[in-house]
């Protein structure tokens, strides 16, 4: 543990360029503290990769609250309005149906469908909004170049620091990561454009 194993320390392979540094941890606690250290050192383009969400990691990385709620609210409002206008126009304007002497349109009888469409469009907004905010699906991330990375979905905890981070300097960042008790630190390469 005190001397982490470095993978691919050799110069970059031909036609590849460095994409990110990947540090591996054995426990969620170590991963969380490593994220705090990176945040305190002024890094912003880094992330943790864990099998399950870790309590307190948002704060450790310094992320603002998720904006998904606004999308869902907009989706829900669209659903309510859509249902109301649809029923008003179809049953009230375009083809009024008088059944049992009741008015062609009546708001109480519209409540169930207004509710259902509100829920339906809110759910679509929640799921597809989440995909949009997460930029998913994305099957070609440089992280998948790492052989070791597959363990994130099993029982290991990773921190990745992107080369694009303004504070990124290969030696310095590596040194900083090695102080956080990683099990390994790896340089991950992607195809050069």
């Amino acid at each position, binding site marked *: *543990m*005190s001397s982490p194993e470095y993978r691919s320390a050799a110069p970059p392979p031909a036609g590849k360029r460095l994409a990110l540094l990947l540090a591996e941890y*054995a*426990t*969620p*606690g170590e991963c*969380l*503290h490593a*994220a*705090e250290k990176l945040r305190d050192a002024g890094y912003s383009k880094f*992330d*943790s*990769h*864990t*099998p*399950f*969400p*870790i309590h*307190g*990691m*948002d704060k450790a*990385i310094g*992320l603002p609250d*998720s904006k998904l709620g606004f999308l869902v609210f907009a989706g829900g409002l669209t659903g309510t309005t859509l249902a109301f206008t*649809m029923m008003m126009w179809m*049953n009230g304007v*375009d*083809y009024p*149906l008088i*059944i049992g002497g*009741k008015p062609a349109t009546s708001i109480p*009888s*519209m409540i*169930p*469908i207004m*509710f*259902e*469409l509100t*829920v*339906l469009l*809110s*759910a*679509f907004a*929640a*799921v597809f909004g*989440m995909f949009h*905010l*997460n930029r*998913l*699906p994305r*099957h*070609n*991330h440089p*992280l*998948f170049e790492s052989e070791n990375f*597959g363990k*994130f*979905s*099993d029982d290991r905890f*990773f921190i990745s620091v992107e080369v694009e981070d303004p504070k990124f300097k290969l030696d310095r960042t590596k040194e900083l990561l090695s102080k956080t008790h990683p099990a390994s630190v790896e340089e991950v390469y992607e195809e050069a454009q």
Partner: protein
Amino acid sequence: MGHAGTLISAVLFLFRQKWRTSINRFAEAMTIFAVMCALVFPGIHVGRVWMAYYMFPLPNQMSMWPNFKSPLIWDIFAVSTYATVSILFWFVGLIPDLATLRDRAKTKIRKTVYGALALGWRGANRHWQHYERAYMILAALSTPLVLSVHSVVSFDFATSVLPGWHTTIFPPYFVAGAVFSGFAMVMTLMLLTRAVYGVKSIVTMQHLELMNKIMLVTGSLVGYAYAIEFFIAFYSGNEYEQWVFMKNRATGPFAWAYWTMISCNVISPQLFWSKKLRTSIPVMFVVSILINIGMWFERFVIIATSLFRDFIPGSWGYFRPTYVDIATYAGTLGLFFTLFLLFLRWIPMIAVAEVKGVLPEADPHYHPEGSHDDHAHAPAAALAGGE
């Protein structure tokens, strides 16, 4: 039953019941397959299946729109919304587990299929943040949605003027019945799977006992609803109501069905008052099967005993199912179990990521062997010793 799984996993999620992680995937899969089976029946009953699009507000050659004042149209919207949201809820819960399968896959086909389905999930905290919010919102949306689906289904009956159907207690009664039968079916399937696949350390006796307690409560609620139907028939002074409940159901030609329902749904779960019976696998298996039978008879009693010996000469006789009725029912059982076995074979039957998340080791402040060390400042040597 088709309406219960999402309720189970969404409501228990909102109440922060950590034990739900061992049954939610199961319950949701069961729900989706049961809804698919349930859709077969109205599909056949519309008579001309190729005209089924009349039910949706689609432009058609008669330039006519559906009558949105009809509870049957409400039901179309409720059930299709419910099916869609349940599938979304299930799939969102599956994404991290599909990523696990992708990373464990050995063959090319598995890597491709699971890889495509996992959408490139990288477990990033930026993703988890939105993911958890989306999951919570979906759970919060599903809960009232389930209540509304049961209520809308019961409106199909309650807004009619048929004695035996025209009952204001139907919406809450249907909700309680759905939770009841859903837990019973989860229990039946879970006990079999648990024995076959050896997941006893994940689905523990504590989980089973909690499920039995819920069955006891909802079974008693259903029993209360049965009693109230009789009371209202008596108290309303309406002779037609009284005739349907007292002469037709409880003592009429279908009394055997009525009392099967009462013994399975109301009496058999009362065994769970005893801790010894509540924690006995054979007892809970038998009771869960009895409840499944009882809940089938509940539908039968509500529908058939209200429709026979009524106003039209064609309905004066005794109801006997035809071989087509029986074969359709047997077919849906086959459809359900085929889908369920495919699910067990190809998809994690237990929510892997969620179970990991509730383990004590998942807490970043967890210290094994009671040792106290401060990760941020401890020297490396102490850490190596401590962990």
